[in-house]
């Protein structure tokens, strides 16, 4: 429910669902590109914290995307 899930985790899950028609790898890359295009670095840092602290509550594409976007090389803006 809104308000109980950290915003970044909720949002990345929602973005991942929007790309669910794509193959998983492709979807993860699209989600990562979207995040790089629209998210402030501190939001991406919080996302990295969630991933590092157990990665709970992420759907698979969201988690894969979060891992791409939090890599040092990240994902190109798109």
């Amino acid at each position: 429910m809104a308000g109980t899930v950290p915003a970044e985790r909720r949002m990345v899950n929602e973005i991942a669902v929007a790309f669910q028609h794509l193959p998983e790898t492709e979807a993860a890359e699209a989600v990562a590109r979207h995040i790089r295009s629209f998210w402030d670095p501190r939001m991406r840092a919080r996302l990295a914290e969630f991933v590092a602290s157990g990665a709970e509550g992420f759907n698979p594409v969201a988690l894969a995307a979060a891992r791409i976007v939090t890599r040092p090389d990240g994902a190109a803006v798109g």
Partner: protein
Amino acid sequence: MSLLKEPDFGTPERPGEATVSVDVDGLSVAVPEGTSVMRAAALAGVDIPKLCATDSLEAFGSCRLCVVEIDGRRGTPASCTTPVADGMRVRTQTPKVAKLRQGVMELYLSDHPLDCLTCPANGDCELQDMAGVVGLRQVRYGYEGENHLDAETDRSNPYFDFDPSKCIVCSRCVRACGEVQGTFALTIEGRGFDSKVSPGAGELFMDSECVSCGACVQACPTSTLQERSVVELGMPTRSVVTTCAYCGVGCSFKAEMRGDELVRMVPYKDGGANEGHSCVKGRFAFGYASHPDRILKPMVRDRITDPWREVGWDEAISTVATRMRGLQERYGPGSIGAISSSRCTNEEVFVVQKMVRAAFGNNNIDTCARVCHSPTGYGLKQTFGESAGTQDFRSVAQADVIMVIGANPTDGHPVFASRMKRRLREGARLVVIDPRRIDLVRSPHIEAAHHLQLRPSTNVAVVNAMAHVVVTEGLVDREFVDARCEGFEEWEEFVARPENSPEATESVTGVPAGELRAAARLYAEAPNGAIYYGLGVTEHSQGSTMVMGMANLAMACGNLGRDGVGVNPLRGQNNVQGSCDMGSFPHELTGYRHVSDDAVRTVFEELWGRTLLSEPGLRIPNMFDAAIDGTFRGLFVHGEDIAQSDPNLQHVTAALESMELVVVQDLFLNETAKFAHVFLPGASFLEKDGTFTNAERRVNRVRSVMRPKAGKHEWEIVCDIATAMGYPMSYDHPGQIMDEIAQVTPTFRGISFETLDKHGSIQWPCNEDAPEGTPTMHVDSFVRGKGRFVVTNYLPTNERTTSRFPLVLTTGRILSQYNVGAQTRRTGNVAWHPEDLLELHPHDAEVRGVQDGDEVTLASRVGKTTLRAQISDRMPPGVVYTTFHHPVTGANVVTTENSDWATNCPEYKVTAVQVGLAHPLGARDADPVREGRPVGVE
């Protein structure tokens, strides 16, 4: 400038080539076929006397003042109703017609109070003018007989008087109400001598269907329908052409002044957006600009619990600069930011984002368009390559099928709605997709062919189902798609899946499959199908998906790139388009270019002398989250009332309370100002100098009719803050700001104050390729090259109804009020909407014991408020509706922080709620406290 009076050619222009040659009093003129003799004469420079004719209305032929003689024809035909013929010779001044005209005038004046010197219309009365033109020197008939001079004046409307004693029954008001406005509220009651203008069935104006657009007042040739302000103040003496500051239609007005006093706003005939029409807000509701609630001096305070202290501009600006810099020193450069407003000019918005990027040194700039049309920007950019609507407003006159989705134009965009209604009366078919039965569904002479009354939040399922019909029934425009689009096959395979069929989606959307199929066929098979949409599309968790879904549908049917078609967002506020164009999103510089683009950034860096960040900044909801987290500490809010307009107000106020510095610039101490430490008085649109860009990408001049009441232009204040923070920003005139915009923005390259003054207005893109602008986009190819089909999965919203919250709340706007009501609540418009009401279906009301007028509680998972119920079957059972124009209602106390997946645009349109009886009608006075209040999150 003196008082500007546009020429009146008597009857409307006819389209086509000027192939018919006519001789008028020895002057030759060529005009299109179907043109009236009166208009041809006017074009030749010969004004034929007239009373019942005016060029905004079709000829009527009742006053008989415009009679002429035509060689070879018998009698004296009315020039207004006589079309030209090739070789026709017309004589407008002969002894015969002179005598006839004098006789007509004499009869008119025999039943008219001859009080010209004390009449409010003295100096602006066509009857007075015509008496002079025809040379009337006597009225032989006395007042002994029966007359209308004792008829009582109707003063029920807050803005204009109706004095029937001065009426000449020319029917211009009646025809204007029908032809121009499309409301048909007025009629001629009675016959012969008893004929009189009547609102409705002999009602007062305020009790009738009249929507106070002012078209009747505009059309009246006498003082029968007269602005109250003219009655009270007298005739204006000079005009300034400017642009309305209400909705995204962006109507041009003549601000008619007496000295520095605004007497009235009159719609400007040469305004590209409105062409001489207006609505109750733009025409009349400008009194807020001089309302005593205006704050005219800067104020500061240390804590939000302290009283305000008035200070001078220097101290206010120094306080903002010092404290902002202090926050950055303590918390980092990204700890501050700004929100710009769609109510401000392009030039003001541009300098705010420049201040943030160059002086603050970050990209934490967002605009209130975030919470309305950001999905439009995203969705149309992804599919067409440009974040803007595709057409000009005139285009609707060529549409054969008009699809209105999630918009209520007669209330939200009334002047455009009048254009649309005119086309519908001419025979265009209408499809309405909306949970609510908006007025367009059935109104005088208009009935929707299909009203798809979908359940809130199921837009994407509906548009996918329509696309399913198009694809599976062979309705795709293959030639268009093959030549101009990409990604079609994947999309085609997706929408053709059985789960997207109307039959499969019916249980989700609530739209009968047969009805949806018929609507889809109607749109797809139309020679020209046009889509118009509003916030009922964008303010959803799938707002961006729906925008792309509509773009897909339009591309599949080939409905792009010419007049009469397109995908057209109806923007909520006057400068939503402009504020987005001006680089006030945190990820984009002007012209929708991403901050990560090195080449684009270099252009700005070289001009501004600062290195700009290549990473996006915080969006408005992210700012609130970061404020609560403690990383965002200072906010400059420019002309926006986030503590009333943004969703989940408990969260918003917690964020505002968390910050160490909130600066509000506004006309009034709004709800957000309760959380502010510095208040900077703003300027009303009457004091502004700059430009607005409307929903059709039309850049219009806003000209100041008076000096800023607070002593400074808003762009000057922003420049002063940036300068005080160590980044000098200075302009002598807002025209220089537009020059800078043009310098750094390819789509604005040809726009300047000079070119705007020359052309009146310009629709961007305006550059070397389109020096006079671009009314229709994507004509030969899309901005991105190929139009891109995007797969649009339908996903149910997370906001679900439950047994505790079994109803869905959706929100909207009412004609007389605007947004959070800060302006319109301070005008006579409160006569129509003194409070927000909750529309509730009779079934839902009955099971809750609620009757019309009862006070009810409205509770969601995040908050609770109270308001009065209005029993209505406009909404289907299970759906309730309200507006958010009054802060006391606190409609956004109950809306949640669910948002569009792509843009974070809030899902205002879907909130699970429960409604309960608070106080029956009549018991309300016992509990006058009706504040919206948050409750704990469950």
